[in-house]
């Protein structure tokens, strides 16, 4: 089941690398949030406890409800145009993503021989980190950079479940809150950027240099 969810997660990454629409990014973030929530609930289906629900519930509220809504609101308020304004052609971007997937999955299977890891979630998580970085590098719009950062965070989360690290619940929630506040601050900054400068893409942020 964990593998199925991870593969669905990978598919969402592929969709991200071909879609030219800003709205689609928000939808994908929502889907990824749902996938991660299911992933967290899975181990508790057999032995249910109230305590175990806290983390998936927080994750669901932050990653599926609050953050996508917040981003939607920013898009609406700032009247951001629908296309993502890539700096390289979409086809080349897809090639790049596929190429990185191949390398990451190969590396994961080699690494799994020496250490006990779940190959598919491990590789999918890592792939999401890489795709997130590609999105930040090859897209001009700042709001898409925020989405790229969130994809990267989701990847790390998936990756964390793959290495079976059990952080205490308090810290996991702390991590989620931190991510939420980062996005919140970025949203405020975006608002200010659109009123201070003309536009919302990286090309306007060229004042500071030596």
């Amino acid at each position: 089941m964990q593998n199925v969810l991870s593969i669905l997660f990978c598919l969402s990454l592929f969709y991200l690398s071909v879609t030219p629409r800003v709205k689609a990014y928000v939808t994908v973030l929502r889907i990824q949030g749902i996938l991660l929530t299911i992933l967290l609930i899975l181990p508790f289906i057999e032995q249910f406890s109230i305590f175990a629900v806290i983390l998936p519930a927080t994750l669901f509220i932050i990653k599926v409800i609050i953050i996508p809504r917040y981003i939607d609101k920013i898009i609406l308020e700032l009247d951001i145009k629908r296309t993502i304004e890539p700096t390289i052609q979409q086809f080349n971007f897809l090639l790049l993503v596929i190429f990185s997937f191949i390398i990451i999955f190969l590396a994961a299977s080699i690494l799994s021989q020496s250490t006990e890891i779940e190959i598919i979630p491990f590789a999918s998580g890592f792939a999401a980190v890489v795709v997130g970085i590609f999105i930040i590098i090859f897209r001009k719009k700042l709001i898409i950079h925020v989405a790229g950062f969130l994809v990267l965070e989701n990847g790390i989360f998936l990756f964390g479940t793959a290495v079976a690290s059990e952080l205490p619940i308090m810290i996991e929630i702390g991590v989620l809150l931190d991510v939420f506040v980062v996005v919140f601050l970025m949203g405020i900054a975006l608002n200010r950027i659109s009123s201070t400068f003309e536009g919302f893409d990286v090309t306007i942020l060229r004042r500071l240099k030596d």
Partner: protein
Amino acid sequence: MLEFSILILIPLIAAAVCYLIKSIRSQYAISLTISALHLFSSFIIFIGWYKPNLPFFFSTDPLSKLFLLILSNVYFWVVLISFSYLKRPVTSKAEAGKKYYFLLLNFYLFANTAAILSNHFGMYWVAAEATTLSVAPLIYYYRNGEALEAMWKYLFLVSVGIAFAFIGILFLTLSANGTTMEGHQLFFSEFVKNATKLNPVWLKASFIFIFVGLSTKIGIAPMHSGDVDATSNAPSPIAALMSGSLRITALLGVMRIFQILTPTTSYEFAKLILIIGGLLSLAVAFIFMFKVNNYKRLLAYSSVEHLGIITLGIGVGGLAFAGAMYHVIFNSLNKMVLFFTAGNIHNRFKTREVNGVRAVINLLPWTGWLFLLSFFAISAIPPFGIFFSELMIFEGMLFSDKPWILAVTMFLLLFIFINMGRTLFQMLYGEKDEKTQQEKESFEIIHFAVIVLLILLIAIGIISPGILQENILSISKDFGIIL
């Protein structure tokens, strides 16, 4: 529990109180009281009068005691001068933002103390990210385009960097697979005890990810750009806070993982990475000192340079390691004096361009002379503290197995000194503009703070208190270095 409340809970409560109180003066009074209390408790913990017993994921060791004292000290002075700084006129937009200043400062103290005292990698990560979140809005104090851009870049770069550090922490978990620690919590002390049993491949990967990720926050090249932009555009108390205390909190994370690597076979590899990082930072400072024409940026690059020297000292090991620990202290004091006086210059000339500033010594005699002395101090001229710590680092390099590092470092530092001096002297002396009227500069609290800090810089360097020496010796011992 008492120490836990004073160090961690009260700053958090104070942040909430600052939100409720409207008057800046009362906010200042509360924050100053708390900072004094914090400084007092970290001081008695440092000198060993009080043995703290912290709950949950927190604990103290010689390293965290030293870093906690540095944080408290920097924070106290920054809060002390903040009120007179806030009185300076700014745009109406920025005026409205002042009400969040002390709230964020108190939250910063809470987050940074939690990061320094944490004994758990997860806790450290959460707290370190929280420090970024509290500092980012403070960078945007002036509410102008440059500040906004600096804040965005800092927030984005550091958040991505620290996400990488999280991957490093997960790798660390993987390195414990197959040992008795599998499935256990990520406590530093546990990892240090069982270091030799960890899987070396994952350990190395973990070190690289944590080092690269946190170096966005430490400001080590090649990840320094966000940090330089932020330090140069933030108001001077915040720049002093970042250079003096925030960077070393990030350094603490790197030192924790380095400590785990100490008894393992990956030790030499980690040392090499730190040396490369340090030398690269020096090289970046060397290049940009030639072309930079903004004095706040100049000071920011000086921070890159000194954090580079510290990283280099830690990487070289031996006596250089102890020197690096002294350098952490002196650098934090010295950065405060430099940024405080630079803030005064900015207030008088309303520009950060070197070309717009002339004859500071004539126009602002107090600030001018103190700025000159701070420059001497940062250039490691005796009797200021940095001279002694750099001497120790250089001696360590000379007697290490890689003495060529000393040659490279000396070469780079010489040109950094010449270029920095050339620029600063141009500001201090130079022809006075005919039109500028001479107003007599009054003695302010900022001057008082700078004088006390300069005296501290000399006194700690010359007297070298026994308690400090003992502390640094025990830190070195924790890192497997017997001096």
